[in-house]
């Protein structure tokens, strides 16, 4: 038997010789028992084989299942991604539709929608608001076909606050208003009646008793008088520019917002709520003042900006900034301040990193002269050659870079020659030629800043800085069509004409400026200009003079400058005997400044103020539900003064009128 098995194995393994195989097959045909034995053996072997096969099939199956699930998982992930994309697409499309629906209903509401809001139930008052809806239609072609984008702006203005009884008596015909949440919608044509009913009644607070701290009363008074914000809705994924009612322009870059809680980038429609404060009356009504710690500021306009999406607050993403063009001009060195209330008094801070701009953009060194030794202090590896477009002086015709450079050099030479105070050179009794090494930066908005000058004589260096500070704005240089900061370095060779023969000459008109390269270590001074303006090519000339600032923060924003008057300053406080906790401010006539005060026992402390300034002392106090306004013009003379103010009772509308009268002082 064992032999037969060996033989069968050999046969199955094909290891028999031809004759052996034939003999084997012959035996199968003739020997029935052997055949049966062979079949049985083969069956067992195939049974054994099955074990192996089944094992293989199982592993294949598992592999198949794994790959299937991987595919499902991948598909799932893909599906989710697609869903998200589709959702966001649909959503934006939907919101677009919604807005166009708005547009159709716009026919109904036409020019204005009037509604009243019950401000808060505790004080049971009705704030009457005037809603104006502006709808801008814009058609854009998108990849998915034309999409109609409707941008609408709702401008709200508070007309006044009323209790329900007062409201009913003031507007008797409107008693049957319909209430919806806290807002009551009234027929648009009722607007006329609101305008007729000039008398505006102050909100009555029954919880308030006259004995309570009056200053608190005053504070609460300011809340309803505050201006209503203008609400602008726009798509956060696109650059957006808006011009507000009082002329402020805000440029919002695409994708600039993140949710303050989740820190996630926000897409879709975002509403920006901005309140503009240009008028003195608006500022006073909002209890605003212009002070940065103990320094007085001069304001060029204040804004309060909030961004929201679905009632959640947004903030600016790091590296993103809003460009704000204030509707004001004429004052230099305006900077952007962010506001915080400290003990109820507005305090303005300079943002810590003013220089965010220049750290982001490449700073480029450029030599005006051909001298190569003057390369120290190069803070960037980039050089003039990397500029695609060199900065252009406004007097220069556009041309190629070489021409522009040439022209720029001529302009700056002419400018320095014209403005340089020659008396300085005379005073120094200069005989030989003196070199002044000057460097400055043209930032990406075309402003001249970071001016440095070195000379053997401090006076010459200081004068060079003074002159360059006067240098006008230029068109900034470009790399890849982006405006960049450009560094300029050049030496001024200064000598008084005719001095070569060692003869001092007092002629002042013969200044010669030439490029030279000798290095003399002198003083170093850094001056930084804070006016940041839009690239010239994009704005008109009148726009150019407006203050354009960039902010990386929302909230209270003020365009100010520090008051660096040479006048003497004193600590100033006023004793107002009949103040009774009034909110007292000083309004500076010569500059747009409002100074708050700290009150204690009738003494109002204003901190350090410039002397001999004409100011208006303004007091607002509240007794019960009555408002008193006191105004007094005076000149600051002594540290401590006693002043009485004539307070007279005013209604809210009278107060507004009085304050508006002061606007001419700003």
């Amino acid at each position, binding site marked *: 038997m*064992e032999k037969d*098995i060996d033989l069968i194995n050999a046969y199955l*393994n094909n290891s028999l010789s031809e004759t052996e195989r034939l003999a084997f097959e012959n035996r199968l045909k003739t020997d029935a028992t052997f055949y049966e034995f062979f079949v*049985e*053996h083969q*069956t*067992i*072997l*195939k*049974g*054994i*084989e*099955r*074990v*192996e*096969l*089944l094992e*293989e*099939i199982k*592993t*294949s*199956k598992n*592999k*198949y*299942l794994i*790959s299937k699930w991987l595919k499902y998982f991948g598909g799932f992930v893909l599906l989710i991604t697609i869903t998200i994309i589709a959702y966001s697409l649909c959503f934006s499309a939907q919101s677009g539709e919604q807005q166009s629906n708005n547009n159709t209903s716009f026919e109904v509401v036409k020019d204005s929608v009037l509604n009243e809001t019950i401000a808060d139930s505790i004080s049971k008052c009705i704030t009457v608001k005037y809603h104006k809806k502006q709808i801008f239609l814009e058609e854009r072609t998108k990849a998915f076909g034309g999409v109609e984008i409707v941008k609408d702006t709702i401008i709200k203005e508070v007309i006044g606050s009323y209790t329900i009884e007062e409201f009913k008596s003031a507007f008797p015909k409107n008693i049957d208003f319909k209430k919806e949440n806290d807002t009551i919608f009234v027929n648009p044509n009722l607007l006329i009646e609101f305008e007729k009913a000039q008398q505006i009644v102050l909100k009555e607070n029954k919880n308030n008793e006259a004995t309570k701290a009056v200053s608190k009363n005053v504070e609460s008074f300011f809340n309803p008088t505050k201006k209503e914000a203008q609400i602008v809705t726009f798509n956060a994924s696109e650059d957006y520019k808006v011009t507000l009612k009082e002329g402020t322009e805000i440029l919002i870059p695409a994708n600039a917002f993140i949710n303050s809680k989740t820190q996630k980038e926000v897409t879709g429609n975002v509403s920006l709520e901005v309140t503009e404060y240009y008028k003195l009356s608006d500022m006073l009504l909002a209890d605003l003042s212009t002070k940065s710690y103990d320094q007085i500021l001069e304001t060029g306009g204040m804004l309060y900006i909030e961004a929201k999406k679905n009632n959640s607050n947004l903030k600016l993403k790091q590296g993103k900034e809003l460009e704000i063009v204030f509707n004001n001009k004429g004052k230099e060195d305006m900077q952007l301040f962010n506001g915080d209330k400290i003990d109820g008094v507005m305090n303005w801070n300079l943002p810590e990193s003013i220089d965010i701009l220049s750290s982001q953009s490449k700073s480029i060194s450029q030599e005006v002269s051909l001298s190569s030794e003057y390369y120290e202090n190069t803070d960037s590896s980039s050089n003039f050659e990397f500029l695609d477009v060199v900065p252009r002086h406004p007097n220069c015709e556009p041309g190629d870079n070489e021409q522009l450079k040439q022209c720029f050099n001529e302009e700056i030479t002419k400018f320095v020659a014209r403005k340089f105070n020659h008396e300085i050179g005379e005073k120094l009794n200069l005989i030989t030629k003196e070199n002044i090494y000057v460097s400055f930066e043209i930032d990406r908005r075309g402003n001249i800043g970071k001016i440095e000058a070195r000379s053997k004589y401090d006076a010459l260096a200081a004068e060079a800085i003074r002159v360059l500070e006067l240098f006008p704005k230029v068109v900034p240089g470009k790399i890849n069509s982006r405006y960049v900061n450009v560094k300029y370095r050049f030496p001024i060779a200064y000598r008084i004409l005719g001095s070569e023969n060692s003869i001092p000459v007092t002629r002042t008109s013969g200044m010669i400026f030439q490029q030279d390269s000798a290095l003399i270590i002198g003083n170093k001074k850094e001056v930084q200009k804070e006016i940041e303006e839009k690239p010239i090519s994009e704005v008109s000339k009148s726009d150019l003079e407006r203050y354009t600032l960039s902010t990386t923060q929302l909230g209270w924003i003020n365009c100010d400058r520090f008051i660096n008057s040479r006048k003497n300053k004193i600590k100033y406080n006023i004793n107002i005997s009949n103040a009774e906790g009034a909110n007292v401010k000083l309004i500076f006539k010569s500059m747009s400044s409002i100074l708050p005060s700290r009150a204690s026992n009738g003494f109002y402390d204003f901190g350090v103020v410039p002397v001999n300034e004409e100011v208006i002392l303004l007091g607002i106090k509240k007794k019960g539900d009555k408002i008193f306004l006191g105004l007094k013009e005076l000149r600051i003379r002594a540290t401590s003064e006693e002043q009485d103010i004539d307070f007279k009772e005013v209604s809210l509308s009278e107060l507004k009128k009085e304050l508006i009268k002061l606007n001419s002082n700003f």
Partner: protein
Amino acid sequence: MSDDKIMALFKNGKREKAFKELYKLYPRIEKLILSNNGTKADANDVFQEALIILNRNLEKSDFKLTSSFYTYLYSVSRFVWKDTQRKFTKQELHNLQSEEVLVFDAVLEEQKYKSAEKAFRELGERCQQLLQWFYVKKMTFKVIAEQMRFKSEKVAKNQKYKCLQKAKDIYRTQSKTVQS
């Protein structure tokens, strides 16, 4: 993957990969079994059987796949399932077409192998391993003796003979009980 590519995998000895590809047809076979009162476990067994039969036939030199893998596996599965259910009527068997007869033969033949497998599985672990190594992995007795710590090749060979004999015995008794 096309049938040609799967066939190439079989020819190149990449059986596992081929099986993996063929498993893509499983859901459809599962439907067939489920719609014929079978469970998922039944479907799984049937499909395994179908794959084994397919592989068996592919190894035969005279076998030619005349249809797609799916058609073949489908008809095999159908026969396997009907066979286990013993639902063939005489009429049905009579009306079988020549190709179907081949499939049916293959199914019946595999039944025998399956019971041989069952017999084999009743052997001791050592016996199973020894037979597998020798018959499936084609290992020499020398290597087997070393691996399984037999004193010599001869002992290994002897042991194998005994194991095989035992499997045959079990198989025989099995078929007898089935027949009776």
